């Protein structure tokens, strides 16, 4: 009944028939794309592709998503190193025409908000000098994306199919491990795939796990000057078409976890038998649940290529 059609009935019959012969575009491919955009200055200042080139590829991609269907929706969340913010929402910004500068409304609105965001993020960074790290706040933008999607889910039965796309370049921040894993599991629970387009030099273990667990696509484009082509080829695929398209498969996912005590990525560690918290060294007492950990149980976790993710 999600389509508002009767279980039987003339319209259903005609509809089914039309869908059968592929005569019409169906509602199946209407998508809500929530994009997390990495704006980490520490990464972009050292990277080979300039941020403005990157943005121009991404903008064309976002515009093409909106072009595909009138009902498609795009939300962009900027991921800085100190904060995250919604910088674009196509359902709010309805003006279709162009403004004076000759750019589509999408581009000018998004760029303006992005500039504001980057300036604010920098201010925050100055306020807490020593907190500046090279990683960006992926956990924050993932949670914001999921919150947005939850709101859409509750808006009624006729919502577009949501998915999250992480455009990430900065290396993982192990200190965000728990928050990111929690986001990933809640995405998995609400069947929201997390796609990851990782442009940094080494693979991102977090994003590999995120895409693997939620059934999304993890892809690292080998050539960055054709980024738009990769984006449109791989990440523009709606969830409906994914069932019958050949898309990049992940080979070898890095399942290593971070320890809760020093936030370091570890191959082997100690696990609390009650709450499954992970520690790199032995503690008398679990810092998460307070349960005493017997000395004799060093646990083995986080085998590479091992299908078992966290609990």
């Amino acid at each position, binding site marked *: 009944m999600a389509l508002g059609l009767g279980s039987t*009935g003339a319209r259903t019959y005609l509809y089914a028939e039309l869908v059968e012969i592929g005569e019409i*575009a169906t509602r199946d491919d209407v998508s809500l794309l929530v994009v997390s955009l990495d704006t980490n200055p520490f990464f972009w200042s050292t990277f080979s592709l300039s941020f403005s080139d990157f943005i121009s590829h991404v903008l064309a991609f976002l515009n093409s998503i909106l072009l595909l269907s009138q009902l498609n929706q795009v939300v962009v969340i900027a991921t800085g190193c100190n904060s995250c913010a919604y910088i674009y929402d196509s359902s709010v910004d309805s003006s279709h025409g162009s403004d004076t500068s000759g750019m589509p409304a999408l581009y000018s609105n998004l760029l303006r908000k992005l500039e504001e965001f980057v300036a604010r993020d920098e201010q925050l960074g100055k306020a807490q000098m020593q907190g500046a790290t090279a990683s960006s706040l992926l956990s924050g933008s993932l949670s914001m994306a999921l919150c947005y999607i939850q709101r859409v889910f509750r808006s009624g039965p006729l919502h577009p199919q949501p998915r999250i796309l992480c455009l990430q370049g900065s290396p993982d921040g192990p200190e965000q491990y728990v928050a990111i894993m929690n986001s990933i599991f809640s995405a998995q629970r609400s069947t929201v795939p997390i796609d990851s387009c990782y442009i940094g030099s080494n693979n991102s273990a977090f994003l590999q796990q995120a895409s693997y667990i939620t059934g999304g696509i993890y892809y690292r484009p080998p050539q960055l000057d054709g980024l738009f082509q990769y984006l449109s080829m791989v990440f523009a695929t709606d969830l409906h078409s994914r069932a019958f398209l050949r898309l990049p498969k992940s080979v070898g996912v890095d399942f290593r976890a971070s320890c809760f005590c020093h936030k370091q990525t570890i191959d082997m560690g100690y696990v609390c038998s009650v709450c499954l918290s992970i520690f790199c060294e032995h503690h008398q007492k679990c810092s998460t649940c307070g349960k005493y950990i017997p000395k004799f149980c060093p646990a083995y976790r986080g085998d590479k290529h091992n299908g078992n993710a966290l609990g």
Partner: protein
Amino acid sequence: MPEVRIIAKNFMDMVASMPAMKLDKLYDNGFICEAILRSLPPLGKKYVLQMLHIDVQVTAKSMEEWVLPDGISKQKVAIDRLVQLRVFIETVDRKNEKSYKLNPTFQRSLQKLLVNGGTLPREPMPSNITVRLPGLEDLEAYALEQWECFLLQLISSNQVERPSNISSSLMKVFQRRLMSQRDREPPRLTESGFQFLLMDTNAQLWYIIREYISNSEARGVDAAELISFLLELSFHVIGEAYNINTLTDFQRNIIKDLADLGLVKLQQGRKESWFIPTKLATNLSVSLADSSSRKEGFVVVETNFRVYAYSTSKLHCEILRLFSRYATKHLLNVEYQLPNLIVGAITKESLYNAFENGITSDQIISFLQQNAHPRVAERIPSVPENVTDQIRLWESDLNRVEMTEAYYYDEFPSRDVFEAACDCAREWNGLLWEDSKKMHMVVKTEVHTHVRDYLRRQK
């Protein structure tokens, strides 16, 4: 029964049937490319996007590698559609291998649209000139009212208080397949007419627009120009005013008809006049399945087969009464009627009449479901199960006897001949009945000649 399925197909079929020259001209307009793109099946859209920046031919073989084995048929449908619309240009080389390339005009327009955004040929008028613009809700109400008024005029011309300006000849065109005119009798709805009324607004709109376009050549209007204008119109912003002077003479003629259908609202200021697109217009480029414009329902069906229709709309009343006005066409036995309420009951007799007129039980049920009153629409099912089941049962009651034309054979000379004839009929899959004691048999008409020839050869 091909006549029964009046599917309101969309523009794109008409676009696809246009000559190549005209199509390429249409694709110069970025908005038309966008509308075409949106009408494609999901895979088709994806392929256009994928090929957007590829300037070389892509062979069919390498495209096959894009999909999984189960998707091959879907891909074929998508590519056929793309070729049909001339979005893909197909070339066959000497080895008889196909390869595809995006139509250069289409490609250029779409690339431009993607990077620079599109600009409509006209800008909305500034608000200091246009006074008293209607709000969005008013506009939607206006569009629906205009549409209902049109429908009412379509099904019973004498009922309308303020007839629209649609010429009677054009009205005749719309009525062509929906109403049958017999001498000295009031026009009656045909089977397709009933189905038309039971469709939702968007589907109805499609049907009417299609008739409008297919008739355009007869009125001396260029179909390509008409289609391109309608598609362009669908990209205007709802509720904004656009100056009439920006239209060509040709378009100005058409916009009047569109105003009568409720697609645009015409307004006149002191000096200028303008048109305001409504939701109906912007829905045009949305494909058929996206007709998510849910109307507020008005029908409550109770488990005791009582039907309450809360409506002041003349059209609703007319649709329900239509079934009862002519003695032969009941959907409801109307018991009483108040200014905003019609009360009736679904009975066996009323439905038998509906079935006789070619309405199926599924159509009746989906009509009741689609128009369920908000208070019952949340319930699942919105129409009580015992009612829907009974409606289906009553329909199947009518189909208990199946008629087959047949030939009856008797007086066989011997049992061997009889049995051989039975076998022969069985082989042709045409033996309906046999009585081996009395040596009688009945075969379908289609196989009669075979059996007869066979018996002749036996002699």
